[in-house]
């Protein structure tokens, strides 16, 4: 095992957590991501492989599914992001499952993940994104712009996940905290 110590996207050894009123904003570094893009004319095989990984059909447009171990959300035609509790070999595992039906790329460190839990999610997100968060149902995933940054937003039953570009983690975090202080 190598001895390089990881840092979170916010540049610290321990993930940042901010509680503003009823809302908690948590940096969530312990997630791995891999993109899966179906190869040409292998779309069915790719979807089947994903179904095997997820224990059910791959998510449709703007959807998120959570399997027993892995989750996935749709990011484009025949393209998904697979998420799992952090493991360095997620991409390899997914590639093994998909074989030649898909191109798989490790995306773990391309993104920063923030989880919003507690009250006030809608009020805060109103200041950040033009998504109709109040109407988003659990298991919906959308692409949006927050603080000029392209982000993914996933609605869960009692929380919201935001994936944003890792290099801009501080700017995104600043925007989230500022909006929370402003709205709550």
């Amino acid at each position, binding site marked *: 095992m*190598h001895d390089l110590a990881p840092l979170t996207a916010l540049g610290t050894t321990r993930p940042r957590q901010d509680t503003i009123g009823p809302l908690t904003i948590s940096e969530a570094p312990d997630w791995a991501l891999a993109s899966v*893009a179906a190869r*040409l004319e292998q779309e069915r095989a790719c979807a089947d492989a994903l179904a095997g990984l997820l224990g059910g059909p791959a998510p449709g447009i703007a959807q998120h599914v959570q399997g027993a171990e892995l989750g996935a959300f749709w990011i484009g035609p025949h393209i998904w992001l697979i998420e799992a509790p952090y493991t360095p070999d997620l991409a390899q595992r997914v590639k093994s499952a998909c074989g030649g039906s898909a191109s798989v790329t490790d995306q773990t460190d391309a993104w920063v993940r923030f989880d919003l839990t507690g009250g006030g999610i809608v009020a805060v997100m*109103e200041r950040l994104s033009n998504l109709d968060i109040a109407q988003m149902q659990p298991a919906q995933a959308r692409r949006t712009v927050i603080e000029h940054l392209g982000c993914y937003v996933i609605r869960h039953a009692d929380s919201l996940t935001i994936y944003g570009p890792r*290099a*801009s983690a501080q700017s995104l975090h600043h*925007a989230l905290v500022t909006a929370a202080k*402003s*709205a709550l």
Partner: protein
Amino acid sequence: MRLPSGGQIDRTQKLSFRFDGQYYKGHPGDTLASALMANGVRLMGRSFKYHRPRGVLTAGSAEPNALVALRTGGRQEPNTRATTIELFDGLQAFSQNAWPSLRFDALAINDRLSNFLTAGFYYKTFMWPAAFWEKLYEPLIRRAAGLGAITTKPDPDAYDKGFVHCDILIIGAGPAGLMAALTAGRAGARVILADEDSRMGGQLNSERFAIADMTAPDWAAQILAELSTRPNVRLMSRTTVFGAFDHGIYGAVERVSDHLPRPAQGKPRQILWRIYSRRAILATGALERPIAFANNDRPGILNAGALRSYANRWAAAPADTVAVFTNNDDGHRTAADLMAQGITVAALIDTRADAPTLPGVECLAGAQVIDTTGRLGLNSVTVRLANGRTRKLKVGALGVSGGWNPNLALSCHQRGRPRWDDTIAAFVPTADLPPGMSVAGAAEGQFSTHAALSTGAARATQALADLGRIATPPDLPQTEDTPSRITPFWHVTGDKRAWLDFQNDVTVKDVKLAHQEGFRAVEHLKRYTTLGMATDQGKSSNMGGLAVMAELTGQSIAQTGTTIFRPPYTPVALGALAGRSTGQDFRPRRLTPSHTWATEQGAVFVEVGLWMRAQYFPRAGEKTWRETVDREVLATRASVGVCDVTTLGKIDVQGRDAAEFLNRIYCNGFAKLAVGRVRYGLMLREDGIAFDDGTAARLAEDHVVVTTTTANAVAVYRHMEFARQCLWPDMDVQLISTTEAWAQYAIAGPNSRKLLQKLVDPGFDISNDAFPFMACTEITVCNGCPARLFRISFSGELAYELAVPTRYGDALMRRIMAAGAEFDLTPYGTEALGVMRIEKGHAAGNELNGQTTALNLGMGRMVSTKKDSIGAVLSRREGLNTPDALRLVGFRPKNPKARIPAGAHLLAKGAQMLAANDQGYVTSACYSPCLQTHIAIGFLKDGAARMGESLRAVSPLTGEDIEVEIVSAHFIDPEGERLRA
């Protein structure tokens, strides 16, 4: 004066405030205007051009006169309407456009010169000498005329932006809006009810009549209480919907903290909302219009409805004895309400010969106000009676009602034109509304309260039906249903000046002058006279101006038409438009994985795109940046240096056709790139001009990692994605950006391999034989950390780029530094990087500047003729391939100490600095510490054939004129021995 009873103010609490330094008292619920009025203040400002004394005209956001500077310091805000400022304890306001004081204004001399200062006078008067206009005349005019002055201090407050969605947006919370909201709210629709006032209820808050056995304000409060309990209804008070935009989107400003001395910690002052609606109901009521007559602008002369509002809502009046001048029945309601509030109404002057009577007041039917007196406030009005005699009335205030205009601005924001309605003598909205909008109540020309309630309910029912909801409109309460009776009357004829536009000092005479000089179309009239310009946009004046012009041209008002209504409905602060995007937060930043470490080293950062890159790493004792950069370059070339190059774009290209895809993207060949090898690639635009360069590393048969320049990462990705999806959808290629997934460091210098060997895990051979120049591989470092290693060089030295997952980037940089200590490893920044690439003659952004071709860059032979690629055909255009085409060359100054200015143009000795003599230009320049001379690269006509020639590098900007010798662009190691070592 403050009336002894009534009003929606909290008399149990007192608020202290200052106007022009003088202390006054008011109550919660007051506006600045009502509080000043209650304190006996009628004079609140000076007019724009003539500096005439002015008082309040309206009781709302249409106010043209009572504009003040609010607050002090960075929070000072000019041109704020006293009629909309909610009073708070400690409020400070200042009058504008007056010197030395509001009561005695030296520039009131302009009023005496009014014969010379007519509309458009400055178009004709200041013609000679022409040079005086910009330096003398315009500054003088601007100083003499104008509104408030902006503070030069930074605004300490924050402004938010926000986005809200609804089924039905209801704009205006008067009777129509309230009933619409009730209907839609009870039906379960998502409703937003927005109103610019702090107290919802609209005109109902200013009335004394009953609705369903309640006072009008109480009925409004009851409806609002119900609406506030409904989770599907959002009440947005203090929110002005200022614009109707495409696709049901409305712009609105919520004044979150304007009614407070300062915003609470972390809270915004205002929020700029973008409201997404499926349907919208415009229920913005109507605005009263004045009648023009001689000296109708004195403080104390108000719109009649405003006089009624001050008495009913704020228990304030400008005087204890007033008169009312009207051409419609609403003026009678005002007179009745004033009397009910204990105010003496000296006379009700009605222009209509058949005017109705009103018990308790003398009604002068067929009479007109022909003049007024009072220097700083109204003393008397002179009335011409129906029989031709005149009578002087001693009054301290006059309420004027020329009728009501439906407040239809938002209905016309998408170029809709209103239609004229003779029955109410006003323009009303047509069916040509913004899609999804309907109009209710007075905004539609339905002036009775009953009509407002019924149309509000009806519009909401229809909107709900449009959205597939069946609604049962609430029972309509009993209330007044008085027909609107008016006989149009626009201005009293006479020789003296009669004001139409109070804010811009436009009189009836000015409109006549515009007509006389041919500016008769409404848009010309506006520009020539300034009628309807500035902060109020003619809300009280446009109709009067149109009517006078119609009279002069002999056309109807309908034929005369209106000017275009444009957003914003009322002024929007630039701060609200900027939102949080100010200062350091103007845009997000991208930080490299080594940012924390570089900060600890004292690095100076430079913004590159959004990236913050270490520019150089100064050490103690180094006095200039040059000293630092020279050291970094020399140390790297002597031993080894490290630089964070994470910012270069990285695009993961996979698929069976990955190599062929790149073969078409790059102008040089890629189909045969072997696995484990890297190749430099040049991309052309469709027109044959160089677009971007970088490398492509083939990690597997179906997997290539492409790098781009930092600045072009997004553009290249977009370009490739376009090609993939649209040009060649039959290719099996998948793309995804991995720029931020990998921390990547350039390790350059003769000792770079030795350093790397300390990091690379055993089992990976990186010797020159096993891992030659332009090799790439996936390896592990530091006992198992996955990594990618590329042997590529931008500096011209033996060099590598090592990449690890970004989370390990900080740790890897620290490990590299520790491992490199024995080699005097030196971190270097973008400046040293730039110097080394110029020394090596590598093109970068300055050379790939959107005007240059592969030929210009000295890479003409890279454009393969054995295949097709984007831009290849057009790069062969004759005009791009002339014998004297620009070529990339190097420059050395004759005097090594002479700096060559980047951007300088190249001229022959003795040639004049003319475009015709231009032979090329310098793109990049630096001091080379290795060569101990300034050097530069750039483009020169037929440059490759002109080595050794002397030219001048001339900068017309700096005046520098340097003699340079043309040399090869490869100053260092032209054979490339170092990087292959």
